[in-house]
């Protein structure tokens, strides 16, 4: 402020021109005393006739006011400035002008609903039927959409491969959709290009191919069951007869197809009917965790495990198994056998059953096991089932077919149908041919639709190296992965929830893959890429898929189409049953020094959680503990206790595993029940270009997987490197320490004493108390978990994670014992380390009626609800962790860091369930029995003026469970399923002896061993065998 400024009110507000200011001011008649304002004011007011005035100066016609009126700018503004000043003001003005750009928005009119869309109610999710595929085979899903945002996948009850259940892969599909590392743009040599540029390039290449009838054109896909995609490819092959279509699935089913060829002369698909089988024999077939129909198979299998007093109707499962899996863990009798010896076992059994020539006994097969198996199979002809695993050679499949034929199972417990694959082929042979063609320069254009062959192809084919010889390489892929890096064109692949498609289930039932959201990025589906090769390059996938079904759906297409979308299945599309007859036992092909070869056997398996590597960047699946080893974020070279002792290996030792002239460095994991002199490696890990979660996790087992030993490698050696690699295991101790935790008995135990589960430990009698019991006139929520049903598949764990916004914490935090899963599946061993008994026990919050956690919380952040829920109030929690210390079940999870944002890229925020609070740092959390679902159903029931019906509320875990092991409901209703299960004599409470009165109860497992092999269920574990590595 300059000093010559008047003391009177400033005229800055009036500086803007106004009518009064611009009005000419008459010259004063006489100069009055400028300080006599009052008099002047009166005079001026009188002269002007009440015209408004702005300041006393105006009234006084003070010189300041005069000058202000006549000057262009007010005093002290920019006048008479020099160059430097000008620049100063200019720059300030520009800076301010820039600021306005921050708030100024282009005019875009938004319009509110005039009529609200019929189905969309804010806050209410909608469910759409669609289908997820794995290895080409579809599982029907109902996906929850929250205001257009897919948030949760559930099984489709109408779909034959789901029946309402879902597996970990289906649940985790949502994480893939929002994967922050997904490829977002179309790239040409790592540079962003528009779709039109690709279209142009591919059209040129295609036109060039026309001359040679497509001799240089190859299309490489994963296993295709999609009728539309197959029709598109067939169309291209018709236009280019010399072109070739190759399918490659690293965890493919070549063996099963070849086995069917061997047995029947045609590649029929085997449909096992576990619900009809009394005796099941698995020849290294882990049908509960992998296989095209594992959800349905687990459901069918579990339906025959539901224990009824007397054991009536209960099946008996024999598992001859190499790598311990869920199937072996659930088996009544498990025989650990090297993968290479399974064929010999099959022949031995066939000889015993009279289905083949007698062979010499195998030392590792106990005669008692064999004779029990033979008697059971013979005793249940037409009601038994023999199944071979996809990792076993074709001969074993043919043996299984021969045995099923000999036992009269074909047509009863086993059906043979046309395969769901659009074109069953010997994938490995075709891939080898492709590589040879590439090497010879015969391939000019290679379109790779999905998959990651540069990473997954057998090491000896050197696919990645030969790929460079192809002129035009285009790769459609969700990530810019190892293969994309080697191709000129990378096309981001639309997620199945973003694009229209169709697919068939293992039994041939077709589903429309319905998108729930427009592609988040510039994703394209395989249909659109193939469309680019056709005459109509701009057709949408929607039109292409509809065209496929226009014929089959008949006259009323629109109605039938809507029906198919709604139901998630296309009716009557299941593959027809084929009448085939087995040609008997396959001829024995003598292998050069087969199992007699020195050295170890290497068994290749897809990883139980990240499969063939496609889920490597899926944080949920990476952190999901593998069913038996409970490892996360890593794979390992898994050896038996005996082999580890012989080779002096310890857990986490890094070894150099060499087979067939290739070697890889891998950490060791010791697993009881693994056959001796055999190493299991899971492929899929060791990715280098998968994204933030998958890069650098584990080792690449593909590096030693060659085309002549795709599943079983022989003559391997192991040498210690002296280094160690830390592994993150969520259960360090798989020994019950003689405690009565996961209770189990044999059928005979139950017959002797139906209360066998309570023989050792009992709940205390309620003590006299001064306080009356809490009145229970409302719902009493409870859960029953049948340990007999649970197959340990992990679907519930990840369903819980998806439903309840449970964060991923990373390997380091898992190693520190800070994983956040609200529901875990405890796994225990019992008996002999060479062939132990397994116990699975899913452990959610017990919602104790006398909850120890509630007593000790100083701020009442965990309290009991009137309905018996142990509620956690996140915003009240101050994080003393006392509740967790006092929880005997250790189901409480603490946010040691701000986990909810740790890996939360913006895209992952879309994944959150809006009905569940996202927890902050320093807050305790735990299973809520999905209280948001309970309240949702209660509100609905209250509107209708009724009680919640039994089965109306399912928790996320119970809904996902393929084995129907988890039942949730109202204990106050004596007719509810959970109440009925509570009355079962097998029901017990975990640690009930503490007097916590858990609301979650278990039903003791019952096994059904052959009477001659019956051994008591054991929970003891040799002390000499140190199972745990103390990590952290």
């Amino acid at each position, binding site marked *: 402020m300059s000093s010559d400024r008047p003391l009177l009110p400033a005229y800055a507000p009036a500086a803007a021109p106004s009518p009064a200011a611009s009005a000419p001011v008459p010259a004063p008649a006489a100069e009055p005393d400028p300080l006599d304002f009052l008099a002047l004011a009166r005079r001026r007011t009188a002269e002007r006739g009440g015209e408004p005035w702005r300041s006393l100066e105006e009234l006084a016609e003070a010189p300041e006011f005069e000058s202000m009126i006549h000057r262009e700018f007010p005093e002290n503004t920019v006048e008479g400035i020099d160059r430097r000043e000008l620049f100063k003001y200019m720059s300030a003005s520009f800076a301010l002008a820039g600021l306005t750009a921050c708030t100024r928005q282009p005019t875009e009119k938004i319009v509110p609903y005039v009529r609200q869309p019929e189905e969309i109610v804010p806050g209410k999710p909608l469910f759409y039927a669609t289908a997820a595929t794995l290895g080409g085979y579809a599982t029907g899903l109902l996906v929850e959409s929250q205001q257009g945002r897919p948030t949760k996948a559930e099984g489709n009850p109408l779909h034959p491969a789901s029946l309402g259940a879902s597996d970990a892969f289906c649940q985790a599909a949502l994480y893939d959709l929002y994967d922050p590392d997904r490829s977002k743009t179309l790239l040409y040599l790592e540079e962003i290009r528009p779709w039109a540029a690709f279209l142009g390039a591919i059209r040129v290449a295609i036109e060039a191919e026309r001359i040679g009838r497509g001799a240089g054109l190859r299309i490489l896909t994963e296993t295709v069951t999609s009728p539309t995609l197959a029709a598109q490819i067939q169309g291209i092959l018709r236009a280019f007869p010399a072109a070739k279509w190759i399918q490659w699935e690293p965890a493919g089913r070549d063996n099963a197809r070849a086995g069917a060829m061997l047995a029947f002369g045609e590649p029929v698909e085997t449909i096992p009917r576990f619900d009809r089988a009394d005796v099941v024999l698995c020849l290294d077939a882990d049908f509960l965790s992998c296989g095209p129909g594992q959800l349905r198979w687990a459901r069918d299998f579990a339906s025959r495990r539901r224990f009824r007093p007397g054991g009536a109707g209960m099946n008996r499962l024999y598992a001859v198994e190499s790598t311990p899996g869920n199937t072996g863990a659930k088996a009544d009798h498990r025989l650990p056998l090297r993968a290479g010896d399974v064929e010999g076992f099959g022949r031995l059994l066939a000889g015993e059953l009279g289905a083949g020539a007698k062979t010499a006994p195998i030392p590792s097969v106990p005669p008692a096991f064999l004779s029990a198996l033979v008697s059971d199979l013979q005793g249940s002809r037409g009601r038994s089932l023999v199944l071979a695993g996809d990792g076993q050679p074709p001969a074993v499949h043919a043996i299984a077919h021969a045995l099923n034929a000999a036992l009269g199972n074909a047509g009863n417990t086993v059906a043979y149908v046309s395969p769901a694959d659009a074109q069953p082929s010997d994938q490995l042979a075709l891939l080898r041919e492709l590589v040879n063609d590439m090497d010879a320069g015969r391939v000019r254009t290679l379109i790779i639709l999905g998959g990651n062959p540069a990473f997954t192809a057998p090491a000896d084919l050197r696919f990645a190296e030969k790929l460079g010889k192809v002129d035009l390489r285009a790769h459609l892929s969700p990530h810019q992965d190892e293969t994309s890096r080697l191709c000129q064109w990378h096309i981001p692949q639309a997620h199945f929830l973003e694009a229209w498609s169709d697919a068939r289930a293992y039994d041939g039932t077709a589903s429309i893959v319905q998108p729930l959201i427009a592609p988040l990025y510039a994703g394209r589906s395989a249909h659109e890429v193939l469309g680019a090769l056709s005459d109509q390059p701009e057709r949408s996938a929607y039109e292409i898929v509809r065209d496929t079904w226009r014929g089959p759906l008949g006259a009323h297409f629109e109605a039938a189409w809507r029906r198919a979308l709604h139901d998630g299945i296309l009716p009557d599309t299941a593959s027809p049953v084929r009448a085939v007859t087995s040609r008997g036992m396959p001829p024995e092909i003598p292998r050069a020094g087969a199992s007699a070869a020195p050295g170890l056997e290497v068994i290749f398996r897809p990883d139980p959680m990240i499969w063939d590597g496609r889920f490597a960047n899926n944080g949920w699946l990476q952190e999901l503990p593998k069913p038996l080893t409970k490892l996360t974020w890593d794979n390992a070279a898994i050896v038996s206790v005996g082999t580890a002792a012989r080779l002096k290996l310890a857990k986490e030792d890094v070894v150099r595993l060499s087979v067939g002239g290739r070697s890889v460095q891998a950490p060791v994991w010791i697993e009881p029940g693994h056959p001796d002199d055999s190493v299991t490696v899971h492929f899929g890990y060791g990715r280098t270009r998968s994204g933030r979660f998958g890069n650098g996790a584990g080792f690449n087992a593909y590096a030693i997987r060659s085309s002549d030993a795709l599943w079983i490698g022989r003559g391997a050696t192991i040498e210690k490197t002296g280094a160690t690699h830390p592994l993150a295991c969520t*259960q*360090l*101790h*798989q*020994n*019950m*320490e*003689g*405690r009565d*935790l996961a209770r189990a008995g044999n059928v005979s135990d139950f017959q002797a004493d139906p209360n066998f589960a309570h023989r050792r430990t009992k709940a205390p009698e309620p003590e006299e108390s001064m306080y009356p019991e809490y009145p229970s006139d409302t719902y009493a929520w409870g859960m029953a978990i049948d340990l007999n049903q649970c197959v340990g598949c992990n679907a519930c764990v990840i369903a819980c994670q998806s439903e309840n916004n449970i964060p991923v914490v990373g390997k380091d*935090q898992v190693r*520190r*014992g*800070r994983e956040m899963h609200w529901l*875990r599946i*405890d*796994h*225990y061993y019992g008996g002999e380390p060479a062939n132990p008994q397994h116990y699975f*026990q899913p*452990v959610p919050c017990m919602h104790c009626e006398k909850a*120890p956690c509630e*007593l*000790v*919380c*100083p*701020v*009442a952040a965990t309290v009991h609800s009137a309905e018996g829920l142990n509620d956690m109030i996140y915003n*009240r*929690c*101050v*994080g*003393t*962790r*006392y509740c*967790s*210390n*006092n929880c*005997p*079940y*250790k189901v*409480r*999870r*603490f*946010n*040691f*860091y*701000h986990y909810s944002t740790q890996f939360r890229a913006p895209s992952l925020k879309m994944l959150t369930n809006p009905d569940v609070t996202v927890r*902050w*740092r*320093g*807050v*305790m959390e735990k299973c809520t029995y999905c209280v948001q679902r309970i309240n949702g159903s209660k509100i609905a029931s209250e509107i209708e003026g009724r009680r919640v019906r039994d089965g109306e509320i399912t928790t996320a875990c119970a809904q996902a469970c393929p084995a129907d092991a988890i039942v949730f409901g109202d204990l106050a209703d004596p007719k509810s399923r959970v109440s009925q299960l509570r009355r079962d004599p097998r029901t017990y409470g*975990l*640690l009930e002896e*503490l007097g916590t009165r858990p609301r979650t109860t278990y039903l003791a497992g019952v096994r059904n061993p052959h009477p001659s092999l019956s051994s008591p269920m054991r929970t003891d574990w040799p002390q000499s065998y140190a199972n*745990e590595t*103390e*990590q*952290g």
Partner: protein
Amino acid sequence: MSTQKREPTPPGQATPVPVIEPGHTFASVTDQIGQIVLSRRTPTFWWVGFGISFLLMMALLASIGYLLLKGTGIWGINIPVGWGFAIINFVWWIGIGHAGTLISAILLLLRQEWRTSINRFAEAMTLFAVASAGLFPILHMGRPWLAYWLLPYPNTMALWPQWRSPLVWDVFAVSTYATVSALFWYIGLIPDLATLRDRARKKSFQIVYGMLALGWRGSAVHWHRYETAYLLLAGLATPLVISVHTVVSFDFTIAITPGWHSTIFPPYFVAGAIYAGFAMVLTLSIPLRKLYRLEGFITLRHLQNMAKILLATGLIVGYGYMIEAFMGWYSGVPSEGYVTTSRMLGPYRPAYWALIFCNILTPQALWFKKVRSTPGLLFIVAMVVNVGMWLERFVIVVTSLHRDFLPSSWGMYHGTMWDWSTFIGTIGLFLSLLFLFIRFLPMISIFEMRTLVPEAEVREEA
């Protein structure tokens, strides 16, 4: 200062060692204690000691800053071991504080006049230990900025603390204890502050001490009121010695966790606290009397008496361990028995056996008079007991939690760098406060010492 040059009384002397060296007069007592505070020259060892302590305290600040920034994840805690160093350190520091209150209150009531020369700095030690301890329950919370939710204050949520939780009892026990200890210490300081006020040469000192002395003039009325107040506070503080650590032990006993759920804990914790506290008093008084040449005031008699208390409480603590092990077997509860054997044979067995060595075996040396009357040896024993008492809390907290009911959830716990820096940082805080205290306040009660010199007795007789 001729009094400084006196020879210490030789050990093994037939007559009982006096509680004050013969030859002291009112004036010599006042001079010698007062000059430590009032002398202009700060000794070099003080600068060195304070410098190191201050650096450690800065490490504490850095650790707390990082903790608030990142969260408790920087520590080694996990599920199942939800409590780690923070609670161990809390119990350890609270225990150390106990000796101060015991010496000043209980020994006062029991008219143990030898307490006079050690009570002042033992009380100061109590305060600083409680200050160090008090940090941990707040810092160990996931959301420490909400610590006030443990207090019953009127709020819009209409919520009070959950009174059944021992953590709420802790808040009251510890805050009461801290308040009473501070009052007790300050009231005991008033006559000495007046002495310092009167003897200080610098104006600033005169003003500060003058304000703190609250106008003490040493009149008979003042002395009368002082004696009444001091005795009342002693009476108030006495039950606190028992109650605070009893309540702290409830943090464990109320839980159903095996290894915690035990009725032996309250007495065993109190004995352990006194044990730890006397070990700390010895640890501090032995170097101090040497450095400030206070052997005349803190005589071998004091050291011997403290050594005897150390031995006695050590035996009680040993009995506690024995009963704990016995109950592990006698209860017949598998998880209790397992925790007991796991402590001895499990992965934390080195901590357990080190604890037995430190807390049970080492103090047995105190049966020998030679050890009791050799300050160097006593210092070593006291240091070992300090370590042992920390290990005891480690064993109680960690081994009970790391393997409780469900083997599936068993885990391991290790302190991280931040755990250690926080712990060592509180030692820095404690020592910094202690160094400031010995520099600016009389570490031995001047007026009480004066009652011990022969002049005082003569006057009474006269």
